[in-house]
């Protein structure tokens, strides 16, 4: 028996790989933007709370 069969995997074309890279980059940028937004909004809320004297 020939046990040297190739594993059953999906091979992407160069075009598909490029598209996947672009999508991964977009996801990374989106996540980064989300984190930055969370940080900025938190800062805004903190400073607003301090300015109005709200605690807790």
């Amino acid at each position, binding site marked *: 028996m020939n046990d040297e069969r190739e594993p059953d995997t999906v091979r992407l074309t160069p075009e*598909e790989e490029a598209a996947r890279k672009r*999508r991964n980059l977009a996801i990374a940028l989106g996540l980064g933007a989300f984190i930055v937004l969370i940080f900025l909004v938190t800062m805004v809320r903190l400073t607003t709370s301090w300015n109005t004297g709200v605690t807790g």
Partner: protein
Amino acid sequence: MTGPAIRLGEGGATDAAPPEPSLAGAAAPAVGGIGDYIALMKPRVMALVVFTGLAGLVAAPVAMHPLAAAVAILCIAIGAGAAGAFNMAYDGDIDAVMKRTRRRPVPTGRIPASEAYAFAGVMSLASVLLMALAANYVAAGLLAFSIFFYCVIYTMWLKRSTPQNIVIGGAAGAFPPVIGWAAATGSVSLDALILFAIIFLWTPPHSWALALYKSGDYAAAGVPMMPVARGAGSTRFQILVYTGLYLAATAGPLATGLGGWIYAAAMVGGGALFALLAVRVYLSKAGETASAEDALYAVRAGDKSARDLFAYSIAHLALLFAALLAEHGAGAHVALPGLAG
């Protein structure tokens, strides 16, 4: 539910569908591009949603921090886009049948329905969480409910089961100004509800005008839009009735003092033309032949009045909310004498 992977070479615009590469006969790419994901969020619909949401936020009597306000509007946009993505994922099968929508990312196979669902879920969650942080829980709750309403009540239930689909489902599109208002004030007032009513009553004449000249598409897909289920004549009459209700609702902001002179001018002038176009549709034979041209605004000669009403209805709603934006955003609000405000 997955849409069949078809590839069509004909031209024709869709709801912001990206340009089709000339790959007729070739296999669809396995991984969709960035443009496909943007198309998935229905950017044209998103633009009107953002505009009305912004008007609600600006017209509210409480000023938000500019950054928090910008994030709140971003959340409304992302939430609307997420709902649009879910709608495209679920409707991949009927989108593949309709000429206007068959080149969308899901029916063409550029984005698998499972990915579109995941995309919609992540974006929904992110928009609601961010809204809760940037604004308040009332706005976040309303945003979550509007996404749920559009995805489950409209897309999964009403759209394929009743000709009243867009009448009830129109509520989903009416939420943005209420969400904007709630983001600023933390509550929902009569003024916010009037803005809701305006969009809610605007939806039937707007959507049915489109359905009249795309009825062939809806019939082929088995979607019971009013012209398909009740006929063109009944639809034209109902457009006239809902136009009357809509125009009456547009007077609401004047009664409460939310709208001033600019709004009044937009309401009277724009409303008169809206009524004229609706009467023109009523007197026409629009929708008598089950047409379904490819492009959104492409139309057969007999259906032109319906296409004109569809196009103008968007402009009219934008005009009303632009008037509110100008009055409250640029400090140009002068209430009419003898009215509240």
